[in-house]
């Protein structure tokens, strides 16, 4: 279905990534946001607070990130598309409710504009060190999706994708910006509403007496309902059966948790998003994402200018990780170079997918700035030897 024109600011804009993300949420149909101020992400909800009263919806500034990350889920069960926005320390607090959203299959979006950590770290400076936290941060096993825009335009586009994927798979979707992408200002083209595809919530067509809240369809995703429609349903963070009732048996746990993990696998197997370039003859592939992919772009240009056959692999969905694609490449390239603003996170996934068939070289950076393209270039040249 097409976007509701009320939320779509069609036109050519000059926006930073945070503001573009806000416009993406409105275009995607988000009419509820809850947040708590934290640098460098607050601009997303500041803009939402300006825009939403004339679009028709709710913004509420909650007392902390715990509250924000569960208020959105209350709103979702009332029928809203909803999201929250934060950065490192707030993301840590939200882990509890990322788990709740995963367990209760509540479609919602968590935006994390990454800054340097651990703890309070570097509030105003970039990092990409929450990538593993996005995947594994809440306790227990569950599946999630995480997307990494590398420009304000993509912050707009991928915010819409995030909401759409949340509805399709009924998982929390993380939008992993970094401080640079959040604060860089570029051209953002917002198309007409009828050019924007949004995924509506898949509400059940069954009557209440036949409906079971967590009975999956063939794609392992159950249909949804909302409060107030007479279904008298029960949602719990406890292990539950298809009716949504708590059930502490090993069998129920196994059936439920395997499904929570398995239901996002179709996305990993083929639909994982990436951007590639110059891979045909590549000896070395640079795997990067977010702001680092833009620094790596310069290193790739310099490498090609020096005659090194270097190719680009940009992760757009970090989770699910495009492992199959990396595995295929591993059979025909010498090495992967993985620059990231952390001391090694996604590089381990590359290593795992490459399975020893190609060298994997991390180019780490503790955050607070971006790489010097020369550093990445040096790694590419060494890898090519």
């Amino acid at each position, binding site marked *: 279905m097409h976007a509701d024109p009320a939320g779509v600011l069609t036109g050519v804009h000059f926006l930073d990534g945070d503001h573009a993300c806000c416009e993406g949420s409105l275009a995607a149909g988000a009419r509820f946001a809850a947040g708590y101020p934290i640098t460098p992400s607050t601009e997303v909800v500041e803009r939402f607070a300006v825009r939403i009263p004339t679009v028709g*919806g709710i913004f509420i500034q909650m007392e902390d990130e715990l509250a924000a990350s569960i208020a959105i889920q209350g709103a979702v069960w009332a029928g809203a598309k909803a999201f929250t926005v934060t950065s490192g320390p707030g993301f840590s607090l939200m882990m509890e409710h990322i788990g709740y959203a995963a367990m209760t299959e509540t479609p919602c979006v968590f935006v994390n504009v990454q800054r340097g950590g651990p703890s309070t770290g570097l509030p105003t400076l970039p990092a990409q060190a929450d990538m593993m936290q996005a995947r594994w941060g809440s306790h227990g096993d569950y599946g999630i999706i995480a997307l990494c825009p590398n420009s304000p335009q993509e912050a707009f586009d991928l915010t819409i994708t995030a909401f759409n994927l949340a509805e399709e798979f009924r998982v929390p979707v993380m939008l992993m910006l970094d401080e640079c992408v959040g604060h860089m200002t570029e051209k953002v083209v917002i198309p007409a509403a009828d050019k924007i595809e949004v995924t509506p919530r898949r509400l059940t067509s069954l009557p209440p007496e036949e409906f079971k809240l967590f009975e999956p369809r063939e794609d392992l995703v159950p249909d949804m309902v909302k*409060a107030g429609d007479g279904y008298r349903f029960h949602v719990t963070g406890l292990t539950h059966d298809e009716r949504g009732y708590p059930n502490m048996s090993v069998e129920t746990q196994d059936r439920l948790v395997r499904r929570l993990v398995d239901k996002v696998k179709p996305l990993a197997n083929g639909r994982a998003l990436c951007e590639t370039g110059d891979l045909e003859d590549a000896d070395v592939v640079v795997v990067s994402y977010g702001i680092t992919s833009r620094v790596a772009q310069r290193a790739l240009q310099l490498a090609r200018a020096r005659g090194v056959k270097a190719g680009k692999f940009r992760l757009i969905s970090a989770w699910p990780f495009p492992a199959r694609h990396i595995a295929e490449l591993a059979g025909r390239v010498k090495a992967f170079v993985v620059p990231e603003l952390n001391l090694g996170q996604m590089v381990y996934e590359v290593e795992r997918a490459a399975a020893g068939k190609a060298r994997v070289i991390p180019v780490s950076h503790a955050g607070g700035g971006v790489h010097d393209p020369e550093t990445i270039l040096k790694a590419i040249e060494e890898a090519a030897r």
Partner: protein
Amino acid sequence: MNETTLEIPYEIPPEASNPVEPFLRMDRMPHIWCAGCGIGTTVNCFTRALIGSKANLDKVAIVSGIGCTGRVAGYARLDSFHTTHGRAIPFATGLKLANPELQVVVYSGDGDLFAIGGNHFIHAARRNMDLKVVCVNNLTYAMTGGQTAPTTPGKVISATSPYGVFEPSFNLVQLAEAAGASYVARWTTYHVKQLSRSMEEMFKKKGFCFIEVISPCPTLYQRRNKMGDGLDAMKFYKEVSKVRNGAPTGECALTKSGEIVVGKFVDRDRPDYLELLRSQMTETLGDRYAEPEVSCCSEC
């Protein structure tokens, strides 16, 4: 202990049922609560209040946190949410704001609402969010084995205060009033009629409403403190409770064996969150203000 058999001096017709059954998920019975626990009594009062209020039950949602009282949501045949520890109120806030047509009840325990969830409680009261909060206060963390709660009175023995509680405790009704609640009452599980009436009154009241129900935990709190069983608790409540409607909440603090002041303490009119939002937006934006339409698809 003497074995007693309860003899019912009349025939029970086979089709007979408890009038509260339509409000409960009977397919989930028996419940998990111990013999003598007061939570079931409060649920009974709650269902009586729902009957009395003639509410459209499809439009009533119940949200619980974690703990013994946290299980109430799972037994109520309403749209019901068993959320995370302490977070029932912010979840309920999102639910209410996204569909103001819903009557949203928060039903949880003292540890959940006032320790881990204390911050959410005071902020929802400050905002005068239109939520109906029932706190079953058994003065302990019961689900986890009877540890000290912020409500546990001084001198009480608990699993984590084996030599007696020395921390001062919260006076919940005073806290609720100070934070801004529109309606504040306290009863015990001995006061079933008054509690039902109070709940019914709360359903009609707009804004943040709070009812504290003092309730026994025979298994942990009473056993450790040699306070007897559920029936002894009823006798104790009967003996020490004093109805003082309108009493200053500052005078209503609880002690281990002292007076329990019960009654309705606060009933005041303040504009609720959504009224304040609407009036502020209309004042600043005029015709440009669009009433929230939060549901995500037109057919919703």
